[in-house]
């Protein structure tokens, strides 16, 4: 086996970042490929982690510093692995990159934003996410950028960093082995027809609620609901929205109970006047996460109802009506809420068909020799388990043993 070839990590979320760092810090070369323009993946949209309710950026900052100071890591963002050939010891992988319209010369001075004429949902065609980002440079959203016909940003950039005519590139890399950490996305909640996720703006997913909390915090704004910008006074959390359901996701997504309770607790700190009700089948918070449940039960603004929400409809006064079968009280209820948060499940992100898929579309642990699978593309799990699993995958990649 060619020991000097690098190890490839596919996916730059918290799992991929961890795998890359853990391998590189043993002294080996690593190539990290991420499809988005920035590292961090899903967690960059989180307001906080459970159970500590601490910001994800705190750990990301440490990890980005580790990446910055480690010459053994090559980070390729805005790129996807489009082909894998060869075998353990000498894989040849093709990496396709989107046009790098803003290159590394960018200093994030922000002159381009000042002149960019395109604005969509409060964001310009050229932008940078708030807070801790890596790499620290602006990117252009090709979907809305007017292109060379506009070119205002090109003219104003003092560093010659913007090239709207940049070409996409395809590179081939030789790698010894690879860790696949492509992560997850949320189950499409609109498929649960009775919940009207698509046509009711105030029915949102837990990930959207998380982003709402995060943006409010960054901008120091109060919580407002999407339909009319009013602060909601009653919020419902619907657990297992699509999970543990043979018609949708038969498995349990493992994180949703903790996520909803964390969100309810965060909300109780920010707005104790907002009443939240959590509708569940079983409350699944293992290990120390149980502490959150104990705390939530002691919090006056939070109530728990064991039961399944049958349908959501509009109540005529701008609110939402939930039809619930309360399993504890054995009654059917119809209750009004201002905002409904669907704790939708986790679905794996898959890339190439060359990788072996097992239950419910997740990758199997066992793959061709030299291919290791880490974290949420293997089974649903939380951040801490993801980091642990990614570290274990780094071990396996080094030892060559599953």
């Amino acid at each position, binding site marked *: 086996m060619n020991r000097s070839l690098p190890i490839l990590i596919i996916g730059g979320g918290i799992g991929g970042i961890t795998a890359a760092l853990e391998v590189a810090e043993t002294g080996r070369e690593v190539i990290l490929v991420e499809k988005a323009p920035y590292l961090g993946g899903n967690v960059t949209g989180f307001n906080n982690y459970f159970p500590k309710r601490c910001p994800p950026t705190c750990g990301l900052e440490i990890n980005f510093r580790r990446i910055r100071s480690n010459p053994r890591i090559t980070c390729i963002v805005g790129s996807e692995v489009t082909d894998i050939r060869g075998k353990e010891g000498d894989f040849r992988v093709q990496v396709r990159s989107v046009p790098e319209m803003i290159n590394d*010369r960018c*200093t994030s001075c922000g002159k381009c934003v000042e002149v960019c004429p395109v604005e969509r949902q409060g964001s310009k065609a050229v932008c940078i996410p708030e807070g801790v980002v890596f790499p620290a440079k602006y990117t252009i959203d090709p979907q809305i950028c007017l292109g060379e016909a506009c070119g205002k940003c090109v003219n104003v950039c003092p560093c010659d960093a913007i090239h709207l005519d940049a070409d996409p590139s395809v590179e081939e890399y030789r790698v010894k082995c690879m860790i696949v950490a492509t992560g997850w996305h949320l189950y499409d909640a609109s498929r649960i027809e009775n919940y009207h996720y698509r046509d009711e703006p105030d029915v949102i997913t837990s990930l959207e609620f998380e982003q709402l909390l995060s943006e409010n915090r960054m901008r120091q704004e109060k919580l407002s609901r999407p339909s009319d910008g009013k602060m909601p006074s009653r919020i419902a959390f619907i657990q297992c929205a699509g999970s543990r359901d043979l018609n949708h996701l038969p498995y349990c997504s*493992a994180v949703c109970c903790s996520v909803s309770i964390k969100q309810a607790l965060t909300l109780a700190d920010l707005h104790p006047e907002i009443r939240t009700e959590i509708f569940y089948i079983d409350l699944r918070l293992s290990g120390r996460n149980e502490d959150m449940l104990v705390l939530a039960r002691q919090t006056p603004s939070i109530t728990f109802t064991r039961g399944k929400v049958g349908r959501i409809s509009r109540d005529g006064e701008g609110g939402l009506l939930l039809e619930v079968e309360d399993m504890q009280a054995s009654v059917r209820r119809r209750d009004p809420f201002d905002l409904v948060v669907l704790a939708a499940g986790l679905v794996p992100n898959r890339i190439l068909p060359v990788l072996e898929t097992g239950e419910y579309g997740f990758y199997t642990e066992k793959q061709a020799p030299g291919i290791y699978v880490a974290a949420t593309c293997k089974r649903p799990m939380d951040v801490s388990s993801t980091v642990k699993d990614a570290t274990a995958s780094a071990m396996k990649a080094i030892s060559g043993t599953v």
Partner: protein
Amino acid sequence: MGLAVCSGCDIGNCLDAESLCSLMAGQAEGIVCMHHPALCSEEGLGKLHRMVRDKKLDRLAIGACSPRVKSSFFQMDGVLVERINLREQVTWVMEAGSEDARMCAEDYIRMGLAKLAQIASPAPYVPEKIAAEIVVLGGGVTGLTAAVQGASAGYRVHLVEKTDRLGGYANRIHKLSPVTAGHTALCEPDVASLAALAESHPLVEIHLNSTLASVSGEPGNFTVELDDGAGTVLRAGSLVVASGWKPYDPSRLQTLGYGSTGQVKTLEEFEQFAGEGKIPERVLFMLCAGSRDKDHLPYCSAYCCGAALKQALYVRESNPGSEVYIVYRDIRTTGFQEDFYRSVQSDEAIFMTRGQVESVRQSGQALEVTVLDSSLGERIRLETDMVVLATGMVPSTTTDLNLQYRLGKGLPELKYAFSDSHFICFPYETRRTGIYAAGTVRAPMDIESSREDGAGAMLKAIQCIECVSRGESVHPRTGDRSWPELYMERCTDCKRCTEECPFGSYDETEKGTPLPNPARCRRCGICVGSCPERVISFADFSIQSISAMIKAIPVPDEFAEKPRILVFVCENDAYPALDTAGMKRLKLTPYARIIPVRCLGSVNSVWIKDALAQGFDGVLLIGCMPGDDYQCHFIHGSELTEKRGENLGEALRTMMLEPERIRTRFVEITGHHEICKMINEYAEAMEALGPNPYKGM
């Protein structure tokens, strides 16, 4: 020494780079200066490299953007580089062209140059003989996995097991919960094959009937004495602690009938029972027996639901006429285990009851169990032949490590006595560098999870050896080559450094003299902050380097109406928050002078006293969030600062200064608004308080 000032990104609007360069060149001899409108451009970098080469510079101050960006651009081999943040902390947060902003920028450059004159490139510390060997404590599934992984990666592993057999708890397992797709059929236990792998691997050395008599030394070079009857002594570069768990003491569950009759068993006892084929016809499983209970174990042990469902199948498979009751609060079968739960539920002879067992009474040959059914809200009586209590996991003690450390024999325990990491994003963060807890001693978990954990911890153990051999720190300051050096002549054996080091780096002689173990050090600098005699320093972070920065700041006199406050900020969370404030162009007072430190705990009180004696109107310390959910990467930096603040209060009294002239505040990394507010309000408060009387003295 060189100075390069960038005037790009609007820095030029805030200061005149050219006159600044001539000012600095005039103030200190031997300083070569340059400025450029875009230092990070190819042209700027070219000019910079030429200057360094032509003038043979070995120290370079760069006044430009934050050191958190463009890092690789300004790294030069053999050159000590100090980045001065004129962009995020001056230009972007202060009024362009104002005199105050200009003064601030000038001060930062003075501070950078002063620091640069006081620091040196660290010469890495590498223990004399590195042992690329790992000791794994515990021969259960976690330890076996760790051993096989480590050996397969080419490292010699010593597997130390206290019993006469490998396998640990898994040896007692009759069948495993389903792991293959579908999750219906129980699987045969596979620990024997894992043990065989370890036994047959040439790099795994197995020590049965052995415990650790002592562990001393430091990462890369531990000496491990075995208590094995033969007095074996091993060398190790790092250790994995996989000493496992024990069931919660069932004798404390007498109200549930344990002990009063032989027909009440624990999960572990029933597992053995099942293995021996002694399964009664009717069995009731009570989940969360002594778990999720503030009087017993407050946490959830994560494995018991799955284990009880599995044992329910033992009963069902042993006899078609059998009946099983499962009394539960929540069934916690996460992930694909849900399929298993669903298949168990479909068995009509398994009755799931949501509720709580109130009492267990002998009734003839059978047991009468009263259950409060929480779905129906009423009491039901059930008759059964056996009750199985799903008791939780209690971690084994790590004092068996017998660490010869000043701070104790075991690993520090966190909540509920697990030797876990406090960090969600760093599960192997350890407080004893080079020693990694894995498996159920770290957190409650099932077998599958333990395997992963064993592999993960072994990776960290290997990484530690590799980092130490390169003379570098491990997480979180990975790659840092500096380490604490002690000027022992002035040490008074006060023991503060040995007590306050969060990682147990320092041992002690009987007299109390500190004995440093640099490879255990995580470079937080808390010892620098702890030492009243100021004898501890790092090559690039010392009492002198920060003192020089403070002294380099000219404090305007009391008539200038330009107050000055000194702000120490933690590099990990507060400093990035300030950078974000810059990106967002928030407003920051030009009266503050900010000094980043490795951890708030590394702030030595002499700096604070010096600053006040020099006429600073106030000193503000900003660190990470303390408390139960602390965010300090060095465990207790912020808390130490508060504790030391009490001593500073005394210093203020002797200086006849108001107590508010020193303040400690905490911020999260996302607190860019908050940190600006903290600094601005503090500056205003100090202005209102009036000038420090020491000004101009």
